[in-house]
């Protein structure tokens, strides 16, 4: 395949926007709740099913399907927060125990999806319609452009909410210093649930967007979880900027590998890239940024 910069940029942007949605979710949860949410993949998978249920039984309208996915993601996020964070956050050895609790929830959730919906994959309707736009020599289908625009819009909304609203202020306070936030009257419990709802919504949108290309299945959450986690890790857990930079870089690596070497080498090159990044910066890319800022 010949080298095509437009195609490369487009693929990078699509991948980066979806990875960004997941990675920022994981990153925010880690920095504000101090918990690694391994059940984020389950949120992703169950949102796909939520969107599918809406498309199947209510309406095939694109906005409604997307809203169904986001809503399911929010509910799943809140449930995970209620089951794994609230009972544990003031207990000893919270970090490891919450990690294990979310892993258990992930196992439970995946198996219950398998139980309820069966192992057969489901397809979502094309919410952005069929068709494509030409960019130079590259062809961009509607769902690629739709993915990029939707995720950017949701990300901007989330960032604005974090910057402007009272709740966003509380979340940022909790990210900086949970004990200090609790001392000045921020409720850790309700803020944590708000964080889980917001990040669950992001995962829900990512699920709907990614399901335009892939199918919905009980195990569909594993790969996005791993990629989102790895992006968050490379960006530096807890940093939104870092997660965005890492999402773009890893999307780029994936696009270059897919074009240059072939699809089966994508994970290998990604991992080599991440291991090199982490060996140089054990705290991720944004660790560097924050370090120089100080």
């Amino acid at each position, binding site marked *: 395949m010949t080298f095509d910069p437009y195609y490369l940029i487009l693929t990078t942007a699509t991948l980066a926007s979806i990875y960004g949605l997941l990675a920022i979710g994981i990153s925010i949860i880690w920095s504000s709740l101090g918990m690694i949410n391994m059940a984020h993949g389950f949120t992703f998978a169950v949102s796909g099913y939520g969107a599918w249920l809406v498309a199947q039984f209510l309406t095939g309208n694109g906005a409604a399907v997307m809203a169904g996915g986001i809503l399911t993601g929010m509910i799943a996020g809140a449930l995970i927060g209620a089951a794994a964070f609230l009972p544990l956050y003031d207990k000893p050895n919270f970090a490891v125990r919450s990690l*294990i609790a979310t892993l*258990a929830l992930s196992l439970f959730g995946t198996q219950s999806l398998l139980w309820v919906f069966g192992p057969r994959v489901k397809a979502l309707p094309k919410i952005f319609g069929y068709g494509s736009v030409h960019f130079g020599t590259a062809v961009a289908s509607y769902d690629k452009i739709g993915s990029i625009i939707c995720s950017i819009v949701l990300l901007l909304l989330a960032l604005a909410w974090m910057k402007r609203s009272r709740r966003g202020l509380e979340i940022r306070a909790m990210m900086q210093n949970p004990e200090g936030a609790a001392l000045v009257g921020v409720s850790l419990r309700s803020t944590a649930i708000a964080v889980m709802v917001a990040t669950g919504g992001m995962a829900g949108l990512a699920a709907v967007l990614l399901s335009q290309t892939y199918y919905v299945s009980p195990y569909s959450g594993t790969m996005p979880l791993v990629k989102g986690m790895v992006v968050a890790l490379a960006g530096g857990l807890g940093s939104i900027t870092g997660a965005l930079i890492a999402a773009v870089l890893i999307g780029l690596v994936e696009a270059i590998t897919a074009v240059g070497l072939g699809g089966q080498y994508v994970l290998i090159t990604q991992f080599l890239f991440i291991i090199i990044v982490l060996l140089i910066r054990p705290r991720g890319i944004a660790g560097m940024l924050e370090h120089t800022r100080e």
Partner: protein
Amino acid sequence: MVRKAGRQDLLLVGRRRLLPRLRGHGGAIWHRWRYPFTRRVPLLFETTYNPKTLRIDRKIVDKRPLYWLAGLIVLLIAPPALGDNSFLSAATVFAIYAAINVVWMLIIGTAGIFSLATLAVVGTAAYGAAYLSINFGLPWWGMIAMGPAFGLVFGIIIAIPAIRLEGFYYALLTVGIVELCRVYVVQSRALGSATGGLYGAQTFVPDAISERGGLVLSYYAAFFVMLAALALYRAINGRRLGLLLRAAPERHEAFAEAIGVNYRAARMQVFLISSAALGGIGGFYATYFKGASPSLFTLESLLLLLAMIVIGGIGTAEGAVTGTLIVVLFDQVFIGLGPVRLMLIAAIMLGTVLFLRGGLFGMATQFRAWRGKRRSQTRALRTGKGGEVMPEEATEISDKQIIYVRRFDKHLRDELKELITDQLIEEHRRSNGRRRSDALERVLTYFRRAAVVDKYAVLTVKPFAEYRIIALSGQRGVPPHTVDDRTYATPEEALHAIFLKRVHDLLES
């Protein structure tokens, strides 16, 4: 009523009598059996003289070796003797997973590296051994021998990031590595992407043997692998490496480094040894299943394995084996339930992690801590002690008589308080020198019995004109001091004022 405290009349208090007790060997109370050429003893005894009977008591301090022995004997005998074929293969799977978990416990518990790539090491070695066997005709013993080599190489590769990364960063990275392995194995044609696994490797079960015989042989082989894993655990965790790492727990690394413990090297050593051992188990896995399948690398298998060690409790070999037993029981025996059995396992895992600090084997410690907390809370709630000795105070008073005196005093005062009424006080004011009621006599007797320190007395300032109340010092040579400025015209008035003060003191106490 005084009862003669015979042997039968004593109340049975405490658990001491329930502990198994062995007789002493005459005068040789320190005699111990030791393993040859070591200073290790099979059972740790404590020999003491019983303070009451003055006999020698030999007690087993740590009874875990006995439990281990009993459990292993049951595992050795029960499945081949009692189980049918499917049960026997489930028991074989249990033994293999128990071996993996015990070695994993070395990595997570002893070395403190939260690696989730354990099954990936096993899987890599299994795939490598199966590949060599299928393509180059490697016999089964060669597969088991090559396993550690594969494990060690893979261990070195995944150990490189562990040098720089810590805690969760490493855990997340290893999850990614597992997923990478799975995708590679699923896509690679050489590793059987078309057949859903790499099958056709040589097995240690000879062709001539019957089906049942083959299953029994496999079970004993797997049991031997588990024993070897337990021996490795003991050899590392109970010896120098384990001790070095116990000196360097999480967040105390700086201290360990300061006293000269090279904990990084120790961790790496344990990690690499464990990886080689996992590789050996992988080689065995490949010979047992005659190959390897991508299911070794799925997130689900990883979660099942994690459930096993979490339920038993991270950090102990018995936890690893028991957790494996529980999860394999659910997973293999209730296989007819479908996904529900995995949901059950997940629910048990979630319950364990939400409510227990250290898994099943941490329950006793946690319960004791909880009971102690509740006891001190109830103690703190008992504020109205009224001069009685608190239980924790009592241990510091050597003359136990004082404790009983204070308890008697408290009960007496409680009783007297109920006698004090307005009529009683009025009676005392009017009945000076005359016959008094029983209640008033009781109260006055108690007052008269008080110690001389701060006991009130009447001072005659001017006879028949002015009287005052003083308090005695109780010490020779120290004069009494006046209590207040009030004067009384008659001694009877002063005596009644003293009575009122004492009544006030009594009601306040």
